[in-house]
């Protein structure tokens, strides 16, 4: 209880009586699913194991369902063997490194451009009228359709590939930023103005932090879609990259390696999305504050 000037005391909400300030810090992993009990964990592990089993049965029995056939699909064991071989291949670090650089540079460019455009579109009707129509036309264009132009527009194939991952990451980030800006209540802006904030300060101190949670969501989705476009991007590549490895395995009819490449992209995409969410949770520590856990 806190004494005040008038000698009375402040009401202390129940949730504050035993301060668990550390809870906030400890829950920076809040972006990861909270409070997963052992039961849930076991269930999720079981789901993965069952999927593997189904894959194994379908592939080893060369299951033919008419519409879809598993005759040429490698078994999990064959894929594991190929993965083991790749793990010991000297080219693996080069594959991983090239892909990471391409995805990361495309993603970071999309983050910068997406947030800047999103702030402009969310704040100004003029920017919305000028920018949204062309962007809406560009949005449905698949990454693979960009390949020829990307090759023509950029001096190096590295930049072309980064650009293709950029097109994948841009729209989720852009649209979520617009949504975040629109969700900032006018009352907060009015309060800011009454406290002496001008236009620039309102943007920097009110709109940007207010939109931050949406931007984090957009960035996490964007990171996923950047990986999504990697195989497409690395069709241009001459030598290295996980996507290139996957595509090359297809052209060489090396089916075991295709599956390894696919799974590797899936894992890397999932992992980097989690890292983005984790960084986002660090940047928005107020999210979840005050919620009883």
């Amino acid at each position, binding site marked *: 209880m806190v*004494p005040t000037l008038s000698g009375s005391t402040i009401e202390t909400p129940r949730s504050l009586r035993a301060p668990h300030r550390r809870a906030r810090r400890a829950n920076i992993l809040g972006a990861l699913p909270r409070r997963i009990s052992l039961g849930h964990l076991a269930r999720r592990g079981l789901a993965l194991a069952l999927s593997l089993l189904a894959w194994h049965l379908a592939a080893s029995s060369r299951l033919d369902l008419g519409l879809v056939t598993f005759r040429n699909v490698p078994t999990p064991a064959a894929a594991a063997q190929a993965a083991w071989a790749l793990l010991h291949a000297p080219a693996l670090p080069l594959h991983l490194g090239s892909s990471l650089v391409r995805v990361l540079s495309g993603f970071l460019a999309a983050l910068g451009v997406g947030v800047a455009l999103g702030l402009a579109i969310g704040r100004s009707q003029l920017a919305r009228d000028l920018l949204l129509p062309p962007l809406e036309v560009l949005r449905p264009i698949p990454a693979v359709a960009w390949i020829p132009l990307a090759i023509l527009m950029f001096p190096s194939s590295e930049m072309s590939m980064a650009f293709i991952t950029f097109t994948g990451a841009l729209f989720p980030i852009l649209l979520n930023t617009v949504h975040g800006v629109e969700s900032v209540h006018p009352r907060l802006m009015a309060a800011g103005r009454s406290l002496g904030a001008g236009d620039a300060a309102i943007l920097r101190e009110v709109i940007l932090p207010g939109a931050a949670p949406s931007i984090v969501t957009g960035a996490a989705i964007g990171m996923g879609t950047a990986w999504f476009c990697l195989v497409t991007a690395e069709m241009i590549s001459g030598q290295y990259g996980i996507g290139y490895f996957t595509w090359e395995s297809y052209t060489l009819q090396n089916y075991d390696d295709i599956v390894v490449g696919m799974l590797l992209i899936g894992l890397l995409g999932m992992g980097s999305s989690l890292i983005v969410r984790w960084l986002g949770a660090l940047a928005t520590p*107020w999210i979840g504050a005050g919620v009883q856990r």
Partner: protein
Amino acid sequence: MSAGTAPAGPHAGNEGRAAGHVSVRDGAIRLGRGEAAFDVVEDIDLDISGRQFVCILGPSGCGKSTLLGAVAGHLALSRGSVSLDGSAIAGPHPDRGIVFQQHTLFPWLSVIDNVAFGLKMKGIGRRERLERVRVLLAQVGLSDFSERYPAELSGGMQQRVEIARALINQPRVLLMDEPFGALDAQTRLTMQELLLDIWTQHQTTILFVTHDIDEALFLADRLIVMTPRPGRILDDIPLAFGRPRERGLITHPRFTAVKQRCLTLLQSAPGGVPLARLSPIGV
């Protein structure tokens, strides 16, 4: 605990501050566009002398919050003029602090950074900011909660932060839009007493909007009673109860007599169906 003796208090330097005289001349406010536009308030003539505590009382939708929004500078008059110490009001300014009913604390800032926001806007360095905020937080009884986020505070504590955040700018007038309307009865009484203490120390003009007669009579030097559709001033009642105000006042015969008069006024008020609740930043 009184900061009245602390020379570095947030109100140090009040001596050179202009008085906080609010004046509205023939004021009218229209909201909405085209066909849907309507007069929210009209024929408002009001003079509030410096350091007075004035309550504007009226039923929901009588335009009292809208009038407050015009003094804050968030809404423009469609006719007439509004000024503070002789200068016309053209937009929001930290000289006219405002506290809303619904929370407007920045959820991403801790209590101390919320209160320091105005000082940051003035370009004051972080160390001095925090020093001045600490004095004010002690006055509103929140010293132990300075690192919390707003979502971790109760409604009453959040309103304390709102008041401190407006006061850090040493406003000439503090505008309050039903600030305690969402609080439970007990917390509301505590907050009323706290506000009177703070007002005594900071010596600012307070323009306080409420639809609670007891609250208005308990707090104010002067009561402006408004009637809805369009909002007009119905009566202007000086309240001569002594200060400091005691809680027992609300059962005093003189208090109940004025309250009876207000009730009669509000019941007999002309005007049609009241508008939905308006806000100081428009519909």
